[in-house]
């Protein structure tokens, strides 16, 4: 579902944010990027979602070449960005409908689909609310609703549960698992939460300073009774969540 070869991004005048990333994600897998602030998780994700041009390297995403055929990639993926993308001035129902129509749905089907995803994320009744009048957690769920409107085969979630209360977090985990179980959706996510990585992911890629420093099932990474925290400390010499280069 995702295959990258030597994917690298160097920001102008900045550091190598992602260095020579080679990895693959199988269909139906739930894979997580775990790493401290500035590790390069978002940068990697933005390259894989066609938003950011890699400095070098290549990737095949959802069966299509990332650089050669970005439009076909976009048709098949859903992306929840770290900071979200809800228009504060537009009623939710209307905006979801536009989103669905951009994926080729007729107006009637788009409007039905909008109602469906709102229900799915427990947002029914908020159709006429503009994004600016939502709580942070509600807005986060709307972000996820946007990414699901067109039933993507591959879902990118950049810190999806940041700002959610425990109940919404659990509901979202549940939802992600169901997407995979019922529709075979592949999920690629980033998180800072060890419990989330542990609960949700089949496989973890631990990232630090643009590189993958460890990879494995959450259980395997915890061998010897160590927590992910300790594993991370071993691998990088500093605790999880600490600023890179600090």
């Amino acid at each position: 579902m995702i295959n990258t070869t030597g994917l690298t991004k160097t920001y102008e005048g900045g550091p190598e944010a992602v260095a020579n990333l080679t990895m693959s994600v199988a269909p139906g897998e739930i894979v997580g990027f775990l790493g401290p602030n500035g590790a390069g998780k978002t940068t990697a994700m933005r390259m894989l979602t066609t938003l950011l041009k890699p400095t070098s390297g290549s990737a095949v995403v959802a069966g299509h070449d990332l650089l050669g055929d970005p439009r076909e990639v976009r048709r098949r993926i859903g992306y929840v960005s770290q900071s979200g993308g809800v228009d504060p001035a537009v009623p939710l129902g209307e905006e979801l409908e536009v989103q669905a129509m951009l994926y080729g749905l007729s107006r009637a089907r788009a409007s039905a689909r909008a109602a469906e995803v709102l229900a799915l994320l427990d947002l029914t009744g908020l159709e006429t609310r503009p994004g600016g009048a939502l709580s942070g957690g509600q807005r986060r769920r709307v972000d996820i609703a946007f990414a699901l409107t067109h039933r993507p085969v591959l879902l990118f979630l950049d810190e999806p549960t940041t700002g959610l209360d425990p109940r919404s977090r659990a509901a979202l985990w549940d939802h992600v698992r169901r997407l995979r179980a019922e529709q075979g959706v592949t999920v690629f996510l980033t998180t800072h939460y060890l419990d989330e990585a542990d609960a949700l992911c089949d496989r973890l890629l631990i990232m630090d300073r643009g590189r993958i420093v460890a990879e494995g099932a959450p259980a395997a990474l915890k061998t010897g009774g160590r927590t992910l925290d300790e594993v991370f400390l071993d691998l990088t010499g500093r605790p999880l969540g600490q600023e890179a280069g600090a």
Partner: protein
Amino acid sequence: MRDTWILFRHSLRVSMRQKAGVVFGAVQPLLFLVLFGPLFATIGTWETLVPGLIVQLGLMSMGLAGFGVVFEKRSGVLERLRVTPASRLALLLGRVLSNAVTLVLQTLLLVAAGYAFGMRAPLAGLAAGLVLVVVLGTGLAALSYAIALTMNEHLFAPVMSTAVVPLVLLSGSFLPMSMAPGWLDALSHASPFRYVLEALRELFAGRYASATVLTGVAVAVAFAAIGLLVGTRVFGERTA
């Protein structure tokens, strides 16, 4: 095409919700009409002044159109749309066409006010002039988006609203450039807006087949093409 239509309708619906915004965009030229027009009418005609104010309106209203995208960039909406399969041209054109509708409404408002003060122009000339203004406005709005996405977002509004002033003055909005001293006249020939404005004045005077009109139309079309080209490129490349 379909994407453009979807985004156009959406954009238009959003901007029409702010009716005050549409009217406010036309306030400055309207003030010139009311407070400067009667003065101008003592030496010139309303048919000369109103086209000038229309060009001023176009420059101000469309030149600042990019401001909308600054907000969309900040809120992440633009990035979300860039992950959809909608073409980059559609992302731009949908917005630009909705801006064009706003400009038409504002221009009609200005023309109606001009009419109330005594301007008279043939209907065909007004209609042709409106088309010309829309073509020019399309290019301006597209360029404005390109600038907004390229430039530091905090500088966009102050820089653009200042940049518009010399462009308006050099187009000969308030007094025809033929009255200017040689150097100023020469300088204003570098501004595309001068040609469009002169064509507009001809159209308002009921002269349709003149070389001036032809030049103005050619300049407006070329300007729109360049604007859309640059705008699409920037929309494709830039990220929030």
